[in-house]
């Protein structure tokens, strides 16, 4: 019995053209028994950053609370909004604090980071995604990040479907198809899915119906 597979669940993030997407399944299980089909693993951090937390459900909740505290403290102290790169390092150091009794979660961060040329009148953003292992080793991928019990399957499908510079609607379709087809081959993930597409002017959130088996 692996702790990382106790509750099940998977998360994926993808880069598009001036947009990013992050998606997860909705299952919460206890080994082979499914408990809930509405367990959220992706949480908004700021208006432009989302974090996905696949792994042990208890630590998902604990880390969400912990990140919220740390982000609020940062925002109050610095009097400015947190950038995704900064948040990724905050995630990394939070996890590494528990190097020898880790949180059993492998976070995925997706966000839009403000470019230096950005002005309040014409804001400019660069898509950002990153993943870490359970002790905070950062992985800045340029294409996509996958995590969770279906990660192998997600790698295979994403490698086949993803292409650079997808527009938001195409990115939504790509990430949705990747996730749904991967979790359908995974016993520990599935039971519906949720997708967030972050664009400079809005966040599109859609809940997908999936196979219920």
């Amino acid at each position, binding site marked *: 019995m692996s702790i990382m597979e106790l509750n099940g669940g998977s998360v994926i993030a993808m880069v598009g053209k001036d947009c990013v997407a992050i998606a997860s399944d909705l299952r919460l299980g206890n080994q082979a028994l499914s408990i809930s089909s509405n367990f959220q693993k992706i949480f908004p951090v700021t208006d432009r950053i989302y974090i996905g937390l696949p792994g042990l459900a208890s630590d998902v909740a604990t880390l969400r609370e912990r990140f919220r505290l740390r982000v609020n403290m940062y925002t109050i102290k610095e009097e400015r909004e947190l950038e995704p790169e900064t948040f990724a390092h905050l995630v990394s150091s939070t996890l590494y604090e528990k190097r020898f009794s880790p949180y059993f979660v492998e976070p995925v961060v997706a966000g839009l980071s403000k470019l230096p040329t950005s002005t309040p009148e014409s804001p400019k953003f660069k898509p950002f995604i990153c993943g870490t292992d359970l002790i905070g080793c950062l992985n800045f991928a340029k294409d996509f990040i996958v995590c969770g019990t279906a990660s*192998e*399957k997600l*790698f*295979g*499908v994403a*490698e*086949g*479907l993803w292409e650079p510079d997808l527009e938001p609607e195409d990115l939504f379709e790509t990430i*949705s*198809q990747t996730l*749904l*087809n*991967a979790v*359908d*081959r995974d016993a520990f993930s599935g039971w519906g899915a949720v997708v967030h597409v972050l664009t400079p002017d809005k966040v599109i959130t859609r809940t997908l119906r*999936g196979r219920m088996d």
Partner: protein
Amino acid sequence: MPQQRQFNPYSENGGTILAIAGADFAVVAGDTRQSEGYSIQTRYAPKVFRLTDKAVLAVNGFAADGNILVKTVKQRLEWYRHAHAKDMPLRAIARLIQTILYAKRFFPYYVYNILGGIEEDGTGAVYSFDPVGSYEREACRAAGAAQALVQPFLDNQIYFKNQKPKPGQSHPTHLPLDHVLSLVIDSFTSATERHIEVGDGLEIYVVLARGHSAQGLSNIPGAQEISQTDEGERVFVVRRDLKKD
């Protein structure tokens, strides 16, 4: 303390195989890397074998067992030819493989097999096996090290899982040869990219039923014809490079 000695008769040699059935053709492919742990033993060890003029077998898992299995199957097919003066039909080969595998139920051949070819009725077929001989006929199947990477991709692209057809239209049950070949190549380049045990070379066997033109092979360079029956079944092989890192 008594001394303990243990001999492990099995090993795992990586690699991946894949087969897809069309309406009147079958495609059976495998990479050519053979590895043990992190070491590459050879960059060219075929995993796909032509059995008859309309049957191709892909064998993946423990290479030593795989080679013996193929040898046995080929021998049994030769005996059949001598006895009946014809090639064994595909569905009979499938049942033969089951028998051979199950005969070693309690010391199994550690191999996953996929058999592809043309049935007696002229349809393309794929049969997939587990190590002890359970088998079923399918439209497509991936097995081996990168099964988890390739199979869900095939579900999506071959079976159109999670895709809704346009109103009034329906998904095709079989895809044309050129489309299938490009999916096979995409699957293996993807698997090579993300799996360390997959790479080096790709061998794609194409079995065409009688009357099927080799049209779909035209835009794939290097397709080589291996055999042709009097009735018109044809077997081709396409060899391509995969990344070697």
